[in-house]
């Protein structure tokens, strides 16, 4: 009986630790109207054109970040596993660098390297700055994306599958596109989810590159309004959970998962 009781206590403590701040935020976000609960703060947020613009901008940036991150990480992790397994510790170390180098350092480096008087004046145009921001996001999400994909690759026999495909006449593009990527798709999606969450909430890069992203908008609202930041936090949290749900659903829709359930 005793171990079961302790398990329940641990569970309740953990649940309280995570759930109480959320419940508190949700409750606070509903108290804009004096004396009664209302959705006024949410209505205000959804009616704010800046919310729609910044959120839309960040979603588009997140999607491109995921795409570029995937195109960069999947072939790299695959190639390292296949051809240079001895380089794995080095590559892992490089992918971990964004965790130890603060984004502020990264963005100042970008501004210094790619300003209008540099050899590659990316900050001179909106598109160039957007690109720079997206590559910055790719860098920030690298530790999570690489780890997720590398773990996915560990579950398959990369070398033998590659050789089997080669012996059947396949080139590298076919091997990565038809064999490797589909088999690590769930891992890629978990990396994509973390990337999405990072991009939606990121503040430093977007603010210093002066792009209209969701992170700076949240900061702005937080500094100037009372109930709306709480409503925004709840909205952001809901979107995050919605994304997790979508990815769970997508992973259950793979032919293999369907075959396993049937």
């Amino acid at each position, binding site marked *: 009986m005793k171990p079961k009781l302790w398990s329940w206590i641990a569970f309740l403590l953990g649940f309280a630790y995570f759930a109480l701040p959320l419940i508190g935020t949700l409750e606070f976000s509903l108290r804009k109207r004096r004396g009664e609960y209302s959705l006024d703060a949410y209505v205000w947020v959804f009616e704010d054109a800046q919310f729609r613009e910044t959120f839309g901008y960040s979603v588009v940036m997140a999607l491109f970040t995921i795409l570029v991150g995937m195109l960069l990480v999947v072939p790299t992790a695959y190639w390292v596993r296949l051809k240079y397994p001895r380089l794995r510790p080095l590559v892992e170390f490089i992918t971990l660098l964004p965790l130890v180098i603060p984004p502020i350092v990264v963005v100042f480096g970008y501004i210094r390297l790619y300003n209008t008087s540099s050899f590659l004046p990316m900050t001179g145009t909106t598109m160039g700055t957007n690109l720079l921001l997206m590559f910055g996001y790719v860098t920030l999400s690298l530790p999570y994306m690489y780890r997720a994909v590398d773990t996915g690759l560990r579950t398959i026999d990369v070398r033998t599958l590659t050789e*089997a495909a080669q012996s059947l006449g396949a080139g590298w593009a076919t091997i990565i596109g038809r064999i490797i990527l589909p*088999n690590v798709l769930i891992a890629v999606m978990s990396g994509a989810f973390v990337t999405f969450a990072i991009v939606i909430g990121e503040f430093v890069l977007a603010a210093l590159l002066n792009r209209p992203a969701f992170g700076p908008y949240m900061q702005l609202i937080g500094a100037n309004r009372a109930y709306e930041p709480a409503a925004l936090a709840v909205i952001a949290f809901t979107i995050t959970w919605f994304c997790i749900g979508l990815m769970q659903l997508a992973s259950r829709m793979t*032919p293999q998962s369907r*075959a396993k359930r049937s």
Partner: protein
Amino acid sequence: MSFLQLDQLRKSFGSTQVVRNFDLQIEQGEFVSLLGPSGCGKTTVLRMIAGFEAPSHGTIRVGPDDVTRKRPNQRNVGMVFQSYALFPNLTVAQNVAFGLRVKGVGKAQSTARVAEMLSLVGLGDFGKRYPFQLSGGQQQRVALARALAVQPQVLLLDEPLSALDAKIRVSLREEIREIQKRLGITTVFVTHDQEEALSMSDRIVVMHGGMAQQIGAPHEIYSQPANRFVAEFVGRLNVLDAQVTDGAQGRVRVGGLDFATGRALAPGPVALALRPEAISIGAAPGHDVSFRGPVEAVQFLGSVIRVETRLGDAPILLDTFNRTGREPPRPGDELDFSFNAAGIIALD
């Protein structure tokens, strides 16, 4: 000219030479096994034929083409792996169709070919299943169908039966040989299992230390081993340390016996080898040498009974058929044994 020609192949990994001056000519439709212990270089030779390893020296020709520097996907060489290597995200039919799709074969033609291949390996109804829904034997059949679907010039089998249980292994090896004969496809089979090599091959290449020790038909390899390694690796062997008493007549003395082997031997000590099935309990027609020895152990192997005895100091194993109604020998018995001196192999 032979269909598959390996000339002076060498392969080094760093300072270690794993394949040394390896020559082999294989005729079209022939089934050749590379047999040897782990680390003898047999898999490296196979991987060089497939194009997964580049030779340090030498040439590989398939038909009239020199494929030594060609990439694996340009060689038209099918391969079956020990671990099946089926694509887990594709169904059985999609796996078999993979190579055809890569080659740009039309859908109708591809579907017909997949059906043909799957029925060839006896899995006509399994097209919609995924690899994880099949047993090991079935997965290896699919791998074979997939390799054959693209009509490769050469089929390479890299220990395809090693991961299977004994019963499936025997049935599948018969099936592979049957399919290979039916299609007439040139095949190179790598194994460390001598029984597999002896039962399936037209010719066997026994390898050791990166070199071919002997190339020959299974019966030649077994009955006339070229050297001590081949004799000891293929089949079981009793080795007797003898003394040559008359080199010209090949007379030897061993364990109190003195007999002529019928072939000239160099004077001095000599190692003689005798297969377990060449020794009989009691006298037997054609057996001209007999000795008496104790039965030290008896192993019952079903159709065969393996008896351990002793000739002088040398332990001797002999195999005798288990005959209905006859009691097997018991440990502790003293029995007469005999063999034919001409059946003795002198090892160098």
